[in-house]
């Protein structure tokens, strides 16, 4: 059966279209979905385009920053003021694919796919981002950490869509990653850190771990000082490198990933807290 593409021009119509077929899936930039369909990782004959939805905005709000789910990543990274407020987030966005890819690829698509190797999930977890959603029962708001169920598994209701992501006004942050080839490659490990306003410690989140990117509370406990000491950083790095489940796959062994977490956490902290690099 050939694919069909619906192009609803509003949120309600999009939700209705998603409910109209059991296998309907939303398509934003399509940069992941088209490949997943081709490879049989996603099976669907009903695509619902999000191109007509009014969610492509990136703006500063009373609460902080609001990033629309259908905003192309390129627009996100080039938003005036965002890099100053959220340096780690913009570093992570710029690390995704190529410029031409980011002109189409969206934040919602990256979240929607929920890949364990995503470069955006760790920093959003560290920033404790809220995700705004809209579904048949109306809008709701949830912590990313709660939505992220597992590898490629986001806890969305049937017909529910990601509307956007809400970030605090500003937070010192950094994202450090390691790849075999610096550009055009998938990260073996990503380490994000952030200190949202009012937080009493540095938040630490890891990518490239199983089953999905995660926070490491045990490591965070060692990082209460705004500029942690060398000893504290070392301890946190040691904890982080043993806290998660690391995969062994074609990109890296678990052993190497573990070592990278230790290194990258120290580097990210040095960058974000202005502290010495142990």
């Amino acid at each position, binding site marked *: 059966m050939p694919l069909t593409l619906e192009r609803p021009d509003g949120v309600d119509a999009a939700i209705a279209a998603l409910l109209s077929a059991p296998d309907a899936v939303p398509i934003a930039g399509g940069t992941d979905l088209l490949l997943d369909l081709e490879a049989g990782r996603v099976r669907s004959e009903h695509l619902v385009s999000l191109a007509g939805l009014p969610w492509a905005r990136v703006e500063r709000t009373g609460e902080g920053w609001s990033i629309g789910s259908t905003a192309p990543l390129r627009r996100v990274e080039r938003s005036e003021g965002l890099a100053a407020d959220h340096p780690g987030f913009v570093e992570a966005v710029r690390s995704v694919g190529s410029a031409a890819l980011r002109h189409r690829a969206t934040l919602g698509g990256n979240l929607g796919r929920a890949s364990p190797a995503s470069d955006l999930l760790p920093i959003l977890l560290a920033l404790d981002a809220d995700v705004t959603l809209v579904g048949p029962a109306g809008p709701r708001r949830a912590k990313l950490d709660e939505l992220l169920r597992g590898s490629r598994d986001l806890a969305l209701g049937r017909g529910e869509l990601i509307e956007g992501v809400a970030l605090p006004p500003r937070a010192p942050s950094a994202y450090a990653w390691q790849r*075999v*080839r*610096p550009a*055009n490659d*998938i990260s073996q490990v990503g380490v994000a850190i952030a200190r949202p306003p009012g937080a009493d410690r540095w938040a630490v989140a890891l990518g490239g771990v199983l089953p999905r990117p995660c926070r490491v509370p045990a490591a965070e406990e060692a990082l209460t000082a705004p500029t942690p000491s060398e000893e504290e950083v070392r301890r946190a790095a040691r904890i982080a490198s043993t806290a998660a489940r690391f995969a062994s796959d074609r990109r*890296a062994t678990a052993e*190497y990933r573990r*070592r990278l977490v230790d290194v990258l956490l120290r580097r990210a902290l040095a960058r974000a807290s202005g502290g010495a690099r142990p």
Partner: protein
Amino acid sequence: MTRPDAAGKLRGAVTFGTDLERPGMLWGALVPSPAAAGRLRAVDLGPARRTPGVVAAIGAEELRQLLPSALGRERPLFPVEEVAYRGQPVAAVAASTRAAARAAARAARVTIEERRPVADVEDRYPEWPGPGAASDPGVIAHVRAGHGNVASAFARATLVHSETYRTSGVCQVALEPHACVAEVSDGVWRVTSSTQTPFGVRDDTAEILGLPAETIVVDGTWVGGGFGGKGAAFLEPYALALARASGRPVELALSYREEFRLGRSTLAAVIRLDTAVIDRTIVGRRVRLLLDTGSSLPGRDFATGYSIGFLVGPYRCGAVEVEGFGVRTNKPPFGPHRAPFAPQCVFALESHLDGLARRLGVDPLEFRLAHVWREGDETFLGQKVGPFGGERALRAAAERARAWRPSVAEGHGLGAALGFWSTGTGAGGEVRLRLDGRALRLEQVEREIGSGSVIAGLTAVAARATGLPARLVRLVASDTATAPVDSGVFGSRTVAALGRAIVQANEKLLATLARRAGGGPVRLEEGADGIDVVGPAGRRPVAELLTPEERDGGGLVAEGRHYGNAPPIDPSRVEDGTFYPYTDFTASVDLAEVEVDPETGSVRVVRAAAFQDVGAVISEPLVRAQVEGGFVMGLGEALTEETLWSPDATLLNPSLLDYRIPTLLDVPPLEITLLEGAPGAGPFGAKGVGEPPILAVPAAVANAVADATGRRVRDLPLTPERVSRALIRP
């Protein structure tokens, strides 16, 4: 220099294989074997035939009716009993759209009684193969040769340096996937293909389809990169069979995934090197090679016997004994790749020598200089070494290394390596020159693959040989039915071998003109109104010297040919297998400075210098471009490129995301030095330079990493993880 093809290519206006189109054309697709090994039980093409848009579907069963000669015992177009690798085409379909063809290929049901595949040479031989292994069914090639008393050399040695190296498979990765379009009518089987070897494709296709070569006509088109991957027949026989079955033209193009999965390329190897030294002099070398040759057929392996010499290298090393096994695994057949498997051999040998020199407390470059071939030396197979630029290149590199050393930062390292290559000038070829009053036409079969060797190289030779300005030389490429025979654009041979043929054709042309002009010697010159012949009898327009037939037929014709001959191998040194003589002796030295991240193992090459033995420069921009491109391809083989296979012989990284060729950000500034003075077999003493620049790069980088860290990585490529593992090794 402005490349003659720049304007067209910068507008996307040239036709590559993937752009070919014919009226009424169908699209082909291949049905892949779902298993890597096993007995083929059934190929049910019913569901494929029922896919909308499908016009033809053929497997071995259908071929029995349609073209039984294509089911020859040795190389049947589709496997009849056993499948040899995952993805091997077991059937093919043609449909009105590409999407329909692919859907139909997916719909076909292939039943295989699976067997456990052999995925790795070390699956077959966890221990070194014992005596008698040469006749194992899993060994498709065995070579053994040597001279001198190796046992005694090792017994007398004051030091023996023994190491094992492992190298990974690498792919050519021409950006254009394979593609061709086939048409069959009136008994002519015609295929237009983006190929490096039109005549090679013709002969190979004839053999596979069991047809007389004259019934097959191959035409080339612009080639979107070759690097060895676009020689021999590959898609063409399938496309022709589909065209025959459907009665329509058929375009067959691979997806990039298939490009990796079906690719005939360099596979993995295990290399053992033992070197015996007395004081500071090498007195003996033992080489052991286990080369993964995939599903190559016995008798068709070229790599084992050719490459093993690169593990002895361009050095005097006393008594030598080499033994190599081409080992069968369930992967696609081993295939040519820019200097096939040589960079991997050079990596092993030059790492080995570097480490040995350090153990001896000798400067690694001085150590090489003490042993490097001089003209007149003998190879281990008893060939006389011709003019060789190795010493010159090493000296130039040593001087540069001394200049760089003081500015090499903490945590950085400097490494150098020497690679040796023999160009494929032995492979023969012919050209036709056709001179009329206005222009010189250079008629031949080859198409441009990117290096410029055809469109710019051959015309430069013709211009230099005839003395005419390049703009009066017209390159004419035609198909195998009309062009003179040639063996292809590969092996760095094009300018060298066809260039010699051009020089010879020009001599014949001038001899004829001299006779007609009342005596020689004569030469050609641009005159007031076209081309003139100038000689003792004065100046006359060419047009006046042509016969009426020549005037009607397009001009005076002279053909030139070049079939190289190499200094012979001493047969008494060969115990088993096929070795190939070297036709000329080309050196390439690289010097690299690296920065190693001590915690992650990431290696960055911060600057590099290449010293290339070129014999004589014919076109400097073209030579430099080959060095630049070859260096970066070598950089990929050094740091990031490898095919990864699962234990069940599935390729795990068949994409340009996971098979990592260098990007614009990975490339260091490169200084290039071209060294003339050691002439080669090409015209005016030129040597081929398509392949040599890649040879020494992995080794130079590995030696620089060893210099920076004190640790040697013996597995290629040097990915961050491998380097990091070496760094924490106790």
